[in-house]
């Protein structure tokens, strides 16, 4: 009894310290609120909010302490929060189930323009995540500038479609190839670098590209971006209400009433097809010698070099394929939005895709799907909360890392095993 009283006293003291720290942290930001006025800044203190926040920290620290105290007491072994099934066959089934849900979604009663838009966004990030996963998850290179290829794909697509007049089905692969070529040029120079240095240089390249996009006004429109990126067509049929000369529109051809959701659904299936394509590519790649080499390089560069794997060439292949996928996603983004500007390809974008990959556990595609839903879908659904949304996003990234430092689905199965062990 004495002991537990001491513990509670200690806990209160700790909570007090936490509240004190919180008071220091919050004073200048929540307590002393600044207001813009004609003669400059002035202060309008918000002591109520301030007190509330500090008290909140005190209570939270105390509650967490009590929970920890109660948890530490029982002698039974610590159980993990939830046990994930370990077999990949199970994951594959879940993934297939998810795929079927996504395929039939537009024809279910829950479907609406909003739902389809959110899922389309999630799927776009899935394409990006598949690409980056090749570099980060499979080959073990940390790329902090993936948005560069996303942006490059988008701008290449927009310029090809608007200035060269290429049709969507030609411009998309060309945009992907351009992103891949850019990755080749960058990769040749920087892939010699290791670890964190590589990460920083990729970040540097992404920033350079963004600044160039922002300043090369005659080509990219600068901060105003490019407007009126053409929408995709289906076998030459436009999905717009008004159709340029020489084209037929989808609804006229089939004698349907014009409906703007037709285009949304079309884009939805388009990106779904893209996801399926990159999924097949990524899974088949793991069975090729090249894919095996990726994993070998990740596990041990030295050893894989010793068995005759060309390090630079292998890394370059991963980097280029990933960039092409990123470019394709960018092209899709451009055609869906109809408008692009450098604002869409900031470091935040790279960080978001990287977070999807890392949270996904850098292993099974199901992890990518789950973390894309979590990181892209949830913030989109809570868009009304505005600023809180981004705070929660940052906090969520930290909390998930603390809870599951190696990702949601962290079990990594090698592509091939010598003997099938139990």
């Amino acid at each position, binding site marked *: 009894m004495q002991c537990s009283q001491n513990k509670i006293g200690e806990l209160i003291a700790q909570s007090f310290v936490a509240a004190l720290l919180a008071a220091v*942290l919050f004073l200048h930001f929540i307590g002393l609120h600044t207001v813009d006025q004609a003669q400059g800044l002035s202060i309008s203190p918000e002591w109520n909010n301030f007190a509330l926040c500090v008290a909140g920290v005190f209570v939270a620290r105390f509650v967490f302490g009590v929970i920890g105290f109660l948890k530490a007491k029982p002698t039974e072994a610590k159980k993990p929060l939830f046990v994930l099934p370990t077999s990949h066959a199970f994951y594959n089934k879940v993934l297939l189930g998810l795929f079927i849900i996504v395929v039939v979604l537009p024809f279910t009663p829950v479907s609406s323009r909003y739902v389809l838009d959110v899922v389309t966004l999630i799927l776009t990030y899935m394409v990006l995540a598949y690409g980056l996963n090749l570099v980060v998850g499979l080959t073990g290179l940390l790329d902090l500038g993936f948005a560069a290829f996303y942006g490059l794909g988008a701008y290449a697509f927009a310029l090809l479609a608007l200035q060269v007049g290429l049709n969507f089905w030609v411009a998309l692969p060309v945009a992907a190839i351009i992103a891949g070529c850019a990755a080749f040029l960058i990769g040749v120079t920087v892939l010699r670098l290791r670890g964190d*240095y590589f990460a*920083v240089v990729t970040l540097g390249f992404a920033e350079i590209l963004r600044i160039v996009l922002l*300043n090369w006004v005659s080509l990219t429109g600068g901060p105003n971006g490019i407007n009126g990126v053409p929408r995709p067509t289906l076998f030459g049929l436009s999905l717009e209400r008004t159709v340029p000369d020489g084209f037929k529109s989808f609804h006229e051809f089939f004698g349907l009433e014009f409906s703007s959701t037709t285009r949304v659904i079309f884009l939805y299936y388009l990106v779904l097809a893209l996801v399926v394509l990159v999924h097949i590519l990524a899974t088949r790649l793991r069975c090729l010698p090249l894919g095996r080499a990726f994993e070998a390089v990740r596990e041990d560069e030295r050893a894989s070099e010793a068995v005759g794997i060309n390090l630079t060439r292998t890394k370059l292949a991963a980097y280029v394929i990933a960039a092409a996928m990123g470019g394709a996603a960018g092209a899709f983004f451009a055609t869906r939005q109809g408008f692009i500007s450098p604002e869409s390809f900031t470091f935040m974008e790279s960080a978001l895709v990287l977070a999807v990959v890392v*949270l996904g556990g850098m292993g099974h595609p199901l992890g990518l799907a789950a973390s894309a839903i979590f990181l892209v879908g949830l913030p989109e659904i809570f868009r009304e909360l505005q600023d809180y949304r981004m705070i929660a996003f940052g906090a969520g990234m*930290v909390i998930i890392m603390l809870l599951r430092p190696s990702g949601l689905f962290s079990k990594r199965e090698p592509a091939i095993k010598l003997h099938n062990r139990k």
Partner: protein
Amino acid sequence: MEYFLQQLINGLTLGSIYALIAIGYTMVYGIMGMINFAHGELYMIGAFVAVVTVVAMNTVGVVAVPLVILAAFVFSIIVTSTYGFVMEKMAYRPLRNAPRIAPLISAIGISVLLQNYVRMAQGARVKPLQPMVEGRITLMERADGFVVSLSYLQIVIVVMAVVLMIGLTLLIHKTRLGRAQRACEQDIKMAALLGIPVERIISITFILGAALAAVAGVMVVLYYGVVDFYIGFLAGMKAFTAAVLGGIGSLPGAMIGGVLIGLIEAFWSAYISAEYKDVASFCILILVLLLRPQGLLGKPEIDKV
């Protein structure tokens, strides 16, 4: 010649600020081998605290400039150090044994969190501040009226940065704490075995880095007079570039790197292109990494199998 001299002065001022931020990166990297991505945000926090302190003191009725500036420095250092301490304790310490990428993601999360927290608490608009220290020394005057001048504030910034760096160097080389820090940098496991309180040293390192970033933040507020919630990212990137340029993990390297980046930026925007001034530092970063990956003063990395 006159134009060149003026750019030199501007570059040195800017460089001193970058150097102070770069030290935080290099110290954390030296001990933990990790890029503290949220370090730029600490600088932003420091700048914000300074603005709020100055405005608050003016509202209360304290207008004596030296007192206000002193208060800005004191509050900014205290608050920013607390942020550094809490950040390390909550977001990085639990990940000590996690895969290498985990603390990096956590740091990016912290960075997003802090930016949006400040934006929500204090608004997204740029916060302006009246210049407090005015007056300048005219060094030279060209025939066409171009004046090379050195403002008092520039002198204060450079002198203060130099004093802080000398102080820090002494701290690292002459005190018990500095010895413990150097031990942790060499071999953290061995240091722990020899009874050095490693966790405390890491905390102190974060606090020191944050305090220097806070000083840089206050200086920027005094120098430019504006601050917004987004300044941390770019400044952080440039300071990191400076740390890499000087050789990451090396303290004098970070100082030299910072000054060099400041100079490069000043001359680039003066002679080549002001729009592309941010490109300059990234180009330098890439070139340095390709030609001399260990940086100017860094030790080459030995690859152990």
